[in-house]
C-alpha cells in the first residue's frame, strides 16, 4: 500500500511538472492506436478505413479527459475552485457572514475555554518527553476512606512513605526510574543573602527526579545520585526558570551562588526549563531540593516512619514493560512489604495508575464537572450553529438561483452540497481563530485569580497547541453541522420551478417552518444552559452562606511557614497579641481549616473492632494551641478543651469531634477512652492518648464536605512548625493587620508570613475557589448562549416581518391598527419563545437530576425553594429578553406604510 502510494505520487509529480509532455503523450498514444487500426482495416479492405477507425475508437475527447483526470490532482484542483467560489460568496454577503462569524467565535470560544480549563486541571499529562510511559505509583490504605478525603481536598492522593519509596525503588524492575516529590513546602527564601526574601513553594525530590523524567536543565545540571543519600549533607538546589528570570536576570553565572532557605544556605546547581512545572500544574515549585534535605523543615522522622505517607511517586516504565506487568510487580512488592512490616503496612495495597487513571480514580467528581461543562458549552455551540444555519438559510433565495444555474450547467447535487459545506467550514475556520482569542481572554481571566495574598501561585492556564487543535476540530464539525441543512435545502429544489419562477420567495413558507423550529430549539437550549448555571450560582451562594462550624466574622488569619524556633515564637506571639486592646482571643492551628496540607493520624481505639485487614484508622487531624476552641467558637460538647498545661507538658490527650464519636463509639462514652496513635507529629512508636473532650463538628477540607471524623491534638514538640494564627478582634479584623504584623516583628525580625487576611475573605476566595471558578465560567458561557439565542430569535422575527410586509400592508389598509400589528408580531415571537422555554424547562429538570451530586446543596431538603427560584428567574429572564428581541421587529412592522408595501413586489 505504501510503496504503491509512493509510485503514484512520483508519477503524478512528474506529470505536474511536465504537463505539456503528458498532453502530447496522450495525443500520441491515441493517434498511434487509431493509425494501427486504420492500417489493419485497410488491409482487410474496409471502405473508408480512416473514419471507421476513428468511429471505432469512440469519443476521444472523453477518453483524454478521463486520462487527464487520472494523472492530475483533480480532486485538489476542484477543492481549490470551490474554496475560491466560497470566498467570493462570503465577500458578497459580508454582513450576514459577520454575524455568522460572531456567533461561531463565541460558540467555539466558549467550548475551547472550557476544554482549556479541564485540560489544565484534568486531562493534561506531565510536560516531559514520552509522557505516556510515566505512571503514578500509589499506596492505598483502606482505599475508600483515604481516597475520599483526598478527593475532597482536590489534590493528588494515594501517598507513599519515604521508606516504602526506597524499597520500591530498589526492588521494582519494571521502571527505568522511580521518582518522589514531597508535599509543597513554603519556607522563607532569600535569593540574595542579607536581602529581603519571601515565601516560595519548595519541593523535595529524589536525586533522579530530572533524569528519570528526562527533563534537561537549561543551565547547569540536575541532582547527582549521591546527593540524596545522606540526610542533611548536600545542600544543593535546582531553581525554576521563572525564579531565575525574576531574581537573577537569567544570568548563567547563577550556578554556584547560594540561596538561603529557612536560614540554611543551598548552592544552586541548575535551572529547570520553563516548560516543566513539577508534578502539579497549580502549585509550581520555584526551588527543588534533594529529598533527604527534609531536615531543613524540621521533619526528620518522616524519612524513616512508614506511617508518614507524604510522597507522590511516579515512575517511568522500561521499554517493553506493559502497565499490567508493572502493576503486578508493584502489587507483589506491596504484599512483601506488608509481610515484612505488618505494624505499619498491614492492609496497604500498592498499585500503578496511568496519569489519567489516577485522576479518574481519585477525583471522579472532576470528570462529572467536566461532563456538565462540556454539555453546557456544547449546547451553546449548538445555539451558535443554529444561528449560522439560520443566517445561511436567509441567503437561500439568492443561493437557490445560483444553484439552479449551476445545475443547469451540469453540476451534480453532491458537488453543490460540497460547495456549500466548504463555505461554512471556511467561515468556521475564521470562527475558530476568533474563538481562540475568546478562549485566551477567558484564560487571562482565570490567570488573574489570586489564591494567596503573598504566595506566587496562580492558575497558569494558557491557550496552547492542544486547545488550538481542539478548536479547529470543533470548528470544522460546527461548520459541517450548521451548513448541512441549508446546503441540502438549497440544492434540493427542482431546477425547472426555480428557473421559471421570478419570485424566489416561493419556497419561503417551508423555510420559515424550519427556521421557527430551529429558534424554538435555540431558546430551549438557552433555558437549559441558563438553568444549569443558575443552579451552580445557587449552589455557590448556599455554600457561601453555609455554616462551616467555626467563627468566620471578626477573625484575622496569618499563615506562617516553619521557623526553627517556632515553639517560642508562637508562645510569645500569642502572649503579645492577646494583650493588645481590641483583641478578644488568639490561637494557632496547623493545618488550618480549608488551608494547604492534609494531615492524618493512625489510631487504634480500645474497644472498637476494626475490619480484618486494618491495623489502624487514618483520621484527619490538626494540632491546635490552647484557646483555639474559644477563639474559633467551636463548642466543646462534652469534657474539656486544651489548656496551657497540655501544650507545655506534652500531655497525652486528644479531643475528637462528634462525627468521630458517632462513628467509632456507638453507644459508648468516648470520654476517658484510650487510643493508641502513630504518625504525624507523634513518634514512630505508638503512644497512648486519652480522649478528654468532644468538639462540635466543623468543616475542614471544603464547604461541601460531609462531616468527617477528626482528631485535635495539642500543639507541642513534634509538629512541623507551620501554623496559622487566628486573631479574633472587636471590629473590622482587616484594620488589625498592621498591628499584628508589628507585634510579630517584635518577636522575630523576619516573620515568615505567606498569607494575611480576614477569615471571611479567605473562605470566599480560597475555600470555594473551585466552586466559584466553575460558577463564573458557567455563567459566562450561558450568558453567551442567551445572547446568541436572542440574536437568533430577533433574526427570525425580523426576517418574518420582512417577508410579511405585503400582508401587513393589506391588514393596515383594511383597517388594522398599529397596535394590532404589533400584537400580531409579538404573539408570533411569544409563541415561539414560550414553546422553547417550556421545552427547555423540562429538559433542564432531566439534566439536573443527572448531575445531582454536583448540586448537592441545592438539592438538600431545606432548599427546595432555591430550585424553584432558579426556575422562576430563568423563565422570567428568558421571557423578558425574548420579548425585547421581538419588540423591535414588531414595532418595525407597525410602521409599515401600506402604500409602499402594496406597491412593492415582495
Amino acid at each position, binding site marked *: 500500500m505504501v*510503496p*504503491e502510494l509512493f*509510485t*503514484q505520487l512520483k*508519477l*503524478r509529480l512528474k506529470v505536474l511538472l511536465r504537463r505539456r509532455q503528458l498532453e502530447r*503523450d496522450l495525443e*500520441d*498514444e*491515441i493517434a*498511434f*492506436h487509431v*493509425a*494501427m*487500426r486504420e*492500417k*489493419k482495416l485497410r488491409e482487410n479492405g474496409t471502405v473508408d478505413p480512416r473514419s471507421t477507425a476513428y*468511429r*471505432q*475508437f*469512440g*469519443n476521444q475527447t*472523453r*477518453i483524454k479527459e*478521463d*486520462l487527464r483526470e*487520472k*494523472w492530475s490532482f483533480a480532486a485538489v484542483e476542484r477543492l481549490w475552485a470551490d474554496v475560491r467560489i466560497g470566498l467570493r460568496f462570503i465577500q458578497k454577503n459580508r454582513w450576514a457572514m459577520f454575524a455568522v462569524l460572531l456567533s461561531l467565535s463565541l460558540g467555539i470560544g466558549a467550548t475551547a475555554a472550557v476544554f482549556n480549563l479541564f485540560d489544565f486541571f484534568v486531562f493534561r499529562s506531565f510536560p516531559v518527553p514520552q509522557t505516556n510511559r510515566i505512571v503514578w505509583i500509589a499506596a492505598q490504605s483502606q482505599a475508600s476512606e483515604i481516597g475520599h478525603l483526598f478527593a475532597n481536598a482536590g489534590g493528588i492522593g494515594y501517598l507513599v512513605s519515604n521508606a516504602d519509596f526506597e524499597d520500591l525503588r530498589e526492588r521494582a524492575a519494571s521502571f527505568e526510574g522511580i521518582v518522589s516529590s514531597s508535599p509543597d513546602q513554603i519556607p522563607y527564601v532569600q535569593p540574595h543573602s542579607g536581602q529581603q526574601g519571601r515565601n516560595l513553594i519548595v519541593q523535595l525530590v529524589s536525586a533522579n527526579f530530572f533524569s528519570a523524567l528526562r527533563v534537561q536543565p537549561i543551565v547547569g545540571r540536575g541532582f547527582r545520585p549521591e546527593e540524596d543519600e545522606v540526610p542533611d549533607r548536600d545542600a544543593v538546589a535546582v531553581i525554576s526558570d521563572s525564579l531565575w528570570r525574576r531574581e537573577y536576570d537569567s544570568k548563567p553565572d547563577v550556578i554556584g551562588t547560594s540561596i538561603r532557605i529557612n536560614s540554611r544556605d543551598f548552592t544552586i546547581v541548575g535551572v529547570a526549563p520553563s516548560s516543566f512545572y513539577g508534578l502539579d500544574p497549580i502549585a509550581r515549585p520555584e526551588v527543588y531540593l534533594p529529598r533527604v534535605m527534609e531536615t531543613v523543615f524540621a521533619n526528620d522522622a518522616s524519612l524513616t516512619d512508614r506511617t508518614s505517607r507524604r510522597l507522590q511517586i511516579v515512575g517511568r516504565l522500561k521499554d517493553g514493560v506493559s502497565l499490567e506487568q508493572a502493576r503486578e510487580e508493584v502489587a507483589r512488592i506491596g504484599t512483601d512489604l506488608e509481610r515484612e512490616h505488618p505494624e505499619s503496612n498491614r492492609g496497604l495495597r500498592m498499585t500503578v495508575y496511568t496519569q489519567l487513571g489516577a485522576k479518574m480514580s481519585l477525583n471522579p467528581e472532576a470528570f462529572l464537572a467536566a461532563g456538565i461543562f462540556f454539555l453546557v458549552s456544547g449546547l451553546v455551540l449548538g445555539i451558535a450553529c443554529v444561528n449560522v444555519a439560520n443566517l445561511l438559510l436567509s441567503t437561500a433565495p439568492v443561493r437557490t438561483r445560483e444553484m439552479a444555474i449551476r445545475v443547469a450547467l451540469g453540476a451534480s447535487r453532491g458537488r453543490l452540497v460540497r460547495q456549500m459545506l466548504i463555505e461554512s467550514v471556511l467561515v468556521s475556520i475564521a470562527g475558530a481563530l476568533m474563538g481562540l482569542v475568546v478562549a485566551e481572554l477567558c484564560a487571562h481571566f482565570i490567570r488573574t485569580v489570586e489564591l494567596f495574598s503573598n504566595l506566587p501561585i496562580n492558575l497558569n492556564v494558557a491557550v496552547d497547541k492542544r486547545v488550538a487543535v481542539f478548536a479547529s476540530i470543533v470548528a470544522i464539525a460546527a461548520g459541517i453541522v450548521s451548513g448541512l441543512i441549508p446546503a441540502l435545502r438549497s440544492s434540493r429544489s427542482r431546477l425547472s420551478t426555480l428557473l421559471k419562477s421570478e419570485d424566489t420567495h416561493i419556497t419561503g413558507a417551508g423555510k420559515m417552518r424550519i427556521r421557527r423550529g430551529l429558534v424554538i430549539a435555540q431558546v430551549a437550549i438557552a433555558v437549559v444552559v441558563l438553568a444549569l448555571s443558575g443552579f451552580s450560582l445557587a449552589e455557590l451562594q448556599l455554600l457561601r452562606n453555609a455554616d462551616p462550624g467555626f467563627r468566620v466574622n471578626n477573625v484575622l488569619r496569618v499563615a506562617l511557614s516553619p521557623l526553627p524556633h517556632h515553639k517560642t515564637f508562637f508562645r510569645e506571639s500569642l502572649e503579645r497579641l492577646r494583650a493588645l486592646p481590641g483583641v478578644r482571643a488568639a490561637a494557632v492551628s496547623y493545618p488550618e481549616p480549608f488551608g494547604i496540607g492534609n494531615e492524618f493520624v493512625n489510631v487504634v481505639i480500645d474497644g472498637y473492632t476494626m475490619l480484618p485487614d486494618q491495623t489502624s484508622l487514618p483520621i484527619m487531624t490538626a494540632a491546635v494551641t490552647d484557646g483555639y476552641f474559644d477563639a474559633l467558637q467551636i463548642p466543646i460538647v462534652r469534657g474539656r478543651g486544651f489548656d496551657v498545661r497540655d501544650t507545655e507538658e506534652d500531655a497525652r490527650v486528644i479531643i475528637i469531634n462528634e462525627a468521630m464519636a458517632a462513628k467509632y463509639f456507638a453507644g459508648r462514652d468516648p470520654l476517658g477512652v484510650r487510643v493508641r496513635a502513630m504518625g504525624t507529629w507523634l513518634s514512630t512508636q505508638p503512644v497512648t492518648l486519652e480522649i478528654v473532650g468532644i468538639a462540635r463538628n466543623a468543616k475542614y477540607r471544603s464547604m461541601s464536605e460531609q462531616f468527617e471524623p477528626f482528631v485535635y491534638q495539642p500543639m507541642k514538640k513534634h509538629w512541623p512548625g507551620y501554623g496559622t494564627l487566628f486573631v479574633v478582634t472587636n471590629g473590622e479584623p482587616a484594620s488589625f493587620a498592621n498591628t499584628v504584623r508589628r507585634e510579630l516583628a517584635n518577636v522575630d525580625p523576619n516573620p515568615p508570613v505567606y498569607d494575611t487576611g480576614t477569615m471571611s475573605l479567605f473562605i470566599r476566595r480560597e475555600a470555594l475557589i473551585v466552586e466559584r471558578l466553575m460558577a463564573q465560567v458557567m455563567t459566562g458561557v450561558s450568558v453567551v448562549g442567551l445572547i446568541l439565542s436572542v440574536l437568533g430569535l430577533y433574526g427570525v422575527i425580523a426576517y418574518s416581518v420582512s417577508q410579511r410586509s405585503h400582508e401587513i400592508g393589506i391588514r393596515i389598509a383594511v383597517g388594522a391598527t398599529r397596535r394590532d400589528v404589533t400584537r400580531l408580531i409579538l404573539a408570533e415571537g411569544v409563541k415561539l419563545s414560550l414553546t422553547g422555554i417550556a421545552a427547555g424547562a423540562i429538559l433542564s429538570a432531566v439534566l439536573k437530576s443527572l448531575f445531582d451530586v454536583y448540586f448537592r446543596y441545592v438539592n438538600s431538603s431545606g432548599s427546595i425553594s432555591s430550585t424553584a427560584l432558579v426556575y422562576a428567574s430563568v423563565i422570567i429572564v428568558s421571557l423578558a429578553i425574548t420579548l425585547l428581541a421581538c419588540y423591535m421587529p414588531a414595532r418595525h412592522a407597525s410602521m409599515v406604510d401600506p402604500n409602499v408595501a402594496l406597491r412593492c413586489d415582495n
Partner: protein
Amino acid sequence: MGSNEDRSADLLQGTLDLLILKSLTKGEMHGYEIAEWIHSTSEEALSVEEGALYPALHRLELRGMLSSSWDVSANNRRAKYYKLTPAGRKRLKESTDSWRRTSMAINRILETA
C-alpha cells in the same frame, strides 16, 4: 460499434486488468497490440473497447503494476510500450488464482440445475 461487437461477451468488471496483465507476460506491447492479442487469443470472442482499455492501462501504470517507455514502432511511429513490473506479476498471479476459484465455483453452480 462494429457488427462483431454484438457477439462478443461483455467483459466482467475487473477482468480487463487481468487480461492486460496476462497479455504482457509475452513481453513489451503497446495498447493496440494488447487489444489485438486479447481479441485474437480469445478467438474473437472478446473485444476490448478503447474507451476502457486506455484508462485501465493508465490506472495500472499509476498503481505501479506496469511500467512504460516510448519507442519507435515497426512502422516508424512513436509508440508507448507497456511492461509488467514485479508488482504486476505478483498481482497477475493472485488475480489468476482468484479468477480460477470464482469461475469454477460459478460453473459448479450453473451445472447443478
